[in-house]
């Protein structure tokens, strides 16, 4: 008995689910009104109207925007980090994590949390924007009905949960 799912990616599963059931994807675009700093539009897409409350969605996007603003803030701390790094010919980045990377980890954790608590129960899935080059927030919409043409006779594997 082995755990396939510990190695199978969540996205992998979602791709299979997507192939199995009719899914749709919504792409939240960037908001460039204030320049090229990373910010996403908080406009509520019509496809999500029946799936999730507007306030929950707006909260998620606003929190993500705040995280990105924090990561890209040019102020005392970023100057210090820049000067220190320059003085060490940027070798310090081999040992130290940059502030942006730290915030990205926080963002990844936040997105996972949101997916687990809010989006997955509603049949939705948020993809981390970094995977899409910070161009869009991809929200996958899954139908409740499962696959009809796939799975039952074809290959399957013991799906144990992570141990």
């Amino acid at each position, binding site marked *: 008995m082995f755990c396939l799912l510990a*190695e199978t990616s969540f996205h992998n599963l979602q791709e299979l689910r997507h192939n199995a059931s009719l899914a749709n994807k919504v792409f939240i675009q960037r908001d460039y009104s204030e320049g090229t700093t990373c910010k996403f539009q908080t406009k509520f897409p019509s496809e999500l109207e029946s799936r999730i409350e507007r306030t929950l969605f707006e909260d998620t996007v606003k929190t993500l925007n705040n995280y990105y603003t924090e990561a890209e803030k040019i102020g005392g701390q970023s100057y210090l980090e820049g000067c220190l790094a320059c003085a060490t010919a940027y070798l310090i980045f081999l040992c130290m994590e940059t502030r942006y990377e730290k915030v990205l980890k926080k963002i990844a954790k936040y997105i996972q949390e949101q997916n687990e608590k809010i989006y997955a129960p509603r049949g939705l899935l948020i993809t981390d924007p970094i995977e899409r080059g910070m161009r869009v927030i991809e929200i996958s919409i899954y139908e409740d009905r499962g696959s009809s043409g796939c799975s039952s006779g074809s290959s399957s594997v013991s799906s144990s949960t992570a141990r």
Partner: protein
Amino acid sequence: MSAVMISRKVRKWEKLPGKNTFCCDGRVMMARQKGVFYLTLFLIIGTCALFFGFECPYLAVHLSAAIPVFAAVLFLFVMAMLLRTSFSDPGVLPRALPEEATFIEMEIEAANGNVPSGQRPPPRIRNIEINNQIVKLKYCYTCKIFRPPRASHCSICDNCVDRFDHHCPWVGNCVGKRNYRYFYLFTLSLSLLTIYIFTFDIVHVVMRSVEDGFLSALKETPGTYPFFFFVLVCFFTLWSVVGLTGFHTYLISLNQTTNEDIKGSWSGKNRVQNPYSHKNIFKNCCEVLCGPAYPRYGPRRCVLPQIFHVQKTTAPLIPNEHTPDDAKASIGVSAEQSCSPEDLPPSFIPPLASPETDAEASVAKDNSH
């Protein structure tokens, strides 16, 4: 019931499109043509080697021991900046996945309406407003995305690069958002190094001439012919590198890229003024040089197993209507914990074998990779 899994770990960067070469497990990313980069390395290392070998002993003794020390520090800084510029990802934008590409196509078709047959459809442009200026975003047919502002497609590397400056053959890579400051510091420090070496070459010859006369000084200077070659190199490098540094200093103070300057995006009375400039030289310099260190986009180096062959067992792989709801949720959660979402390749769909697939086929698949 047992299941057999033949897996091969596939590095995600192996699957990236574009004409880049990768080393050190995906940590190093360069363009394919590296010939000029090796030339750059040869010229810098060669010149400095000659300087340290032939000039420094005399200068350290007759002038100061600090001269070679400072030269060494400067040389190491130049090399660090060069390697950092050459090896880092310039800010390559991952290409659109099929679903996103389709979504964008549908949006474009909806916006264009019905184009009469025989007529060319309008160019794919999206207008956005940045700081009260209208900026046009162009569609990239290769990457199937509307390029973010300041991004451009590099035909040599076949990638869209964010804040694309130019493709530099001397460093063997594109210069973009992530490595522009290293490129600038490289040109700046190389200018200083070249001026430094050239100055002390002259000082060395002058000092020897004062002692012995000019011609005999030249005869006595060891390695005369390579010395002259590298003095010439220094002389020409000086003008080109110092000129380049000056040009980039000008661009930074205006918060412009080389690409925008060449195309004349923000010049001319009828054109839009640069919406990215803070109208303050100091602020512009700070943004470019002291801004955050931007991360790589898209797939990371995370190693992902690829499933080749699977035998029939009882439970379904795909949760269907018969899978209990709590199993579905736990399936999602457990998988996510093992390999975080941002580490996954966007287009990864493993080939799922049916029970009828025999072992031979799966082994053959393995061999083909």
